[in-house]
């Protein structure tokens, strides 16, 4: 019998655990070790390059190598428990080794988007104050500019083909160095990851260092990851996700999704970047816990880059965003031979368009189930139960999660009334790093307010109606108008700038900039090129419109909502 406040529990299968009081593991290192002891020589992570070159690490190897990295951080680099380690790389075998190593060292992982410009990196480094940086060689040229004024004492450099067999690794290395020249010279003192692991290993061997001692005092409430998110104001805020948050969210998500998944048998396509919280928790942690094999794709663009992964591995599960599912449905090779072993796929990050979900179902014969969550919630709050999807909804709250809507005064509304979606559960972050005021703004007691406006149906399915924040979501990545407007306003010819999100077929939403300029010669192209120098590509306005003036409130604040309304009216008229 479902609880009246939690009608959705009626949709949980009989095997779903409804209560989540405490995580099953004391901390992430304990989980990592225990999984490795269960699945030992099974394949844990495989990195698959566009031409099919690949490398695999077993559960035992990842465990041993992350031990070595933990020993390096503590014994050689001299880090202490709680120190931050920034990690900046695309999906590759180094990612799990480094991330697990950071946890085992008792340190805090700071995920950094590898495509960030030096300015963007600098802002994040300034706030997180990392003691070490693990970075991919392709972007290491940005380090000097990004660490000016606040140097990072330890830099560890890795590469995409790290831990692949010697021959493919050598070929990829040569091609990257001499052919596409994507490998940059590193102009700061650094150590290569394999050398760091060797140094760590020598301490484990020589001094009989016990890696388990590094994290023996780390508990569920200690911070494991600082996951940055722009926040409404555009100032980067690090969500403090604890060991407990991540383990619990993993158990919650798998509790609901794993009904037809088999331990130790699944093969998961990880084309979404692991530095994003969705793939981090769902793919890297949850499926590792399931004993699954993660197929890591360093760069899924163009989409033909994942063709070999689909050919060479029996993919049974994948996570994606609308953009990815839509893209695959438009690739001829995917239509010609859709994956045969797929059980279902999980979508998050942005709204899954129902046309895309229908197309996917038609092509693969399997369902995409949609989830919803935020960086601050580790991330999953809701998911559609497998087999019980409902179009236009984001599913029901995960076991152990409460979802309710709140009015503008912060009063909890009864089910069926529209308001700001709030959530509480073991996956809600500890708070924003060094920003108690910002934390207070988003919390009402133990409820976290998401900034999304929604409504819950009588039986617990949730619909998103609107977004309270001005944030734009481009393919699952948050873009904050203030940040873009700051960059635009710094352009000498720009008088005023306003940025909004507009509906976009490919990316869900796209960034559109409205510009008032004094220079009639300024072109949209020139402005976009200028933005590219200062912003990661997904933040660069896709559309630019020049105006004589911008709508403003009587205190002179630019009214983004008016621009949005104009834009929507125009679309409706077309």
């Amino acid at each position: 019998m479902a609880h009246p406040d939690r009608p959705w529990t009626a949709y949980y299968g009989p095997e779903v655990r409804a209560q989540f009081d405490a995580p099953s593991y004391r901390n992430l290192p304990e989980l990592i070790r225990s999984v490795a002891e269960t699945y030992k020589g099974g394949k844990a992570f495989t990195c698959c390059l566009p031409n099919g070159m690949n490398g695999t690490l077993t559960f035992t190897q990842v465990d041993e190598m992350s031990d070595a990295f933990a020993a390096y951080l503590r014994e050689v680099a001299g880090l202490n428990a709680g120190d931050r380690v920034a990690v900046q790389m695309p999906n590759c075998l180094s990612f799990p080794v480094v991330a697990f190593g950071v946890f085992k060292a008792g340190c805090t992982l700071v995920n950094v988007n590898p495509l960030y410009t030096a300015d963007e990196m600098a802002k994040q480094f300034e706030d997180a104050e990392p003691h070490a940086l693990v970075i991919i060689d392709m972007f290491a040229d940005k380090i000097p500019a990004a660490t000016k004024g606040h140097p990072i004492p330890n830099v560890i450099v890795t590469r995409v083909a790290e831990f692949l067999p010697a021959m493919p690794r050598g070929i990829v290395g040569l091609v990257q160095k001499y052919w596409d020249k994507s490998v940059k010279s590193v102009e700061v003192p650094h150590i290569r990851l394999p050398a760091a692991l060797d140094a760590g290993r020598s301490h484990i061997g020589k001094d009989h260092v016990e890696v388990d001692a590094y994290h023996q005092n780390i508990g569920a409430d200690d911070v494991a990851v600082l996951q940055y998110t722009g926040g409404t104001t555009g100032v980067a805020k690090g969500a403090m996700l604890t060991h407990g948050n991540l383990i619990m969210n993993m158990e919650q998500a798998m509790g609901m999704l794993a009904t037809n998944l088999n331990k130790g048998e699944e093969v998961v396509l990880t084309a979404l970047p692991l530095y994003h919280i969705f793939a981090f928790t769902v793919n890297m942690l949850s499926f590792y816990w399931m004993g699954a094999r993660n197929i890591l794709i360093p760069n899924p663009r163009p989409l033909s880059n994942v063709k070999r992964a689909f050919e060479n591995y029996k993919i049974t599960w994948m996570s994606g965003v609308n953009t990815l599912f839509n893209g695959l449905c438009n690739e001829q090779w995917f239509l010609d031979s859709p994956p045969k072993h797929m059980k279902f796929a999980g979508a998050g990050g942005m709204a899954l368009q129902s046309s895309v979900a229908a197309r996917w179902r038609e092509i693969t014969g399997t369902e995409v189930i949609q989830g919803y969550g935020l960086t601050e919630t580790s991330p999953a709050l809701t998911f559609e139960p497998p087999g019980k999807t409902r179009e236009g909804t984001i599913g029901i709250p995960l076991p152990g999660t409460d979802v309710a809507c709140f009015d503008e005064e912060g009063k909890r509304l009864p089910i069926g009334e529209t308001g700001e979606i709030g959530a509480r559960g073991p996956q809600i972050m500890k708070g924003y790093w060094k920003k108690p005021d910002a934390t207070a703004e988003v919390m009402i007691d133990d409820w976290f307010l998401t900034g999304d406006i929604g409504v819950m149906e009588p039986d617990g399915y949730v619909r998103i109606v609107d977004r309270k924040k001005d944030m734009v979501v481009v393919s699952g990545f948050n873009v904050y108008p203030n940040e873009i407007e700051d960059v635009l306003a710094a352009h000498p010819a720009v008088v005023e700038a306003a940025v909004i999100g507009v509906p976009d077929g490919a990316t869900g939403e796209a960034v559109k900039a409205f510009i008032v300029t004094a220079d009639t010669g300024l072109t949209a192209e020139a402005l976009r090129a200028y933005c590219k120098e200062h912003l990661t590509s997904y933040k660069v306005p896709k559309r630019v419109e020049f105006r004589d003036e911008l709508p403003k409130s009587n205190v002179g604040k630019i009214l983004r909502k008016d621009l949005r309304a104009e834009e929507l009216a125009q679309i409706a008229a077309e």
Partner: protein
Amino acid sequence: MVDEFTQTLLGVMVAIIMLGMGASLTPRDFYLALRRPYGLAIGVVSQYGIMPLLGFLLAMFLAVPETIAIGILIMACMPGGTTSNIFTYFSKGNLALSVLMTVTSTVFGVILIPLILLVYAAALDLEIPREDIIAVLIVLLVPVAIGMTLRKLNPNVGAVMEFLGSILGAFFIVFIAVTWVPQNWQFLLSTSGSTYVAAIGLGVVGITIGYFFATTLKLHPRNARTVALETGIQNGPLAIAIVVFTFPAEQQQAIMAVPALYSLFIVMTSTLVTFVFRRANTAAEQKMPDGLL
């Protein structure tokens, strides 16, 4: 004029190039090509319709000696070369289509090449060792099959073979330039201008006709660029191997002239075409928002 060592080396290089070609393939590619015969038909028409006819016309109107004419015909009847894939890549063409066209034309070549050669050679009253050519083509399908198997068994070995094959395809040109050219310098100086016209014209005209053929069929610009390059770029190493392994030593020098010169000049032609294509490339590429990485 090819000594035994060079001959063996040539054989090994062509075998590795074919091995690499095989490693770029799965049985599924053939199945799909057969399921979509339209694309296959375009490839076969451009490769075994347009090019041999062009070779035939060049051989007929350029008034070249018989041996040179045989060289022109053989070069014109070859399947697509692996270098076309590299140029397609840089021309922002459709790489998958290029690979598929190269491979299907190679496989169908076993039957079509001797057949077409025979027809045109008879028309020009030329003698060609038909059975030997079939034998060489069949023998070269063995490394293709091995490459496909290797890729199935171990994707890493497959990818390495594929890479080595394409590198060797490029190296082959260098090999011809530094071994064959100096050895035959005297011959090259004394040979008539029409031999050069044939060797260069085959590529230039082939690419041009291929492009107009594709645009007439209203193919997407990306695919049109691909078909153009695929049509004009022939498998030079294969032509040279056929000459070396099927014709008596005394005829080799003259017959090999066009294939060798073609192999050298097609690199320059294709490079120029690539620049033109890149400039013309205004069509949107398949794009994912940058947010995905």
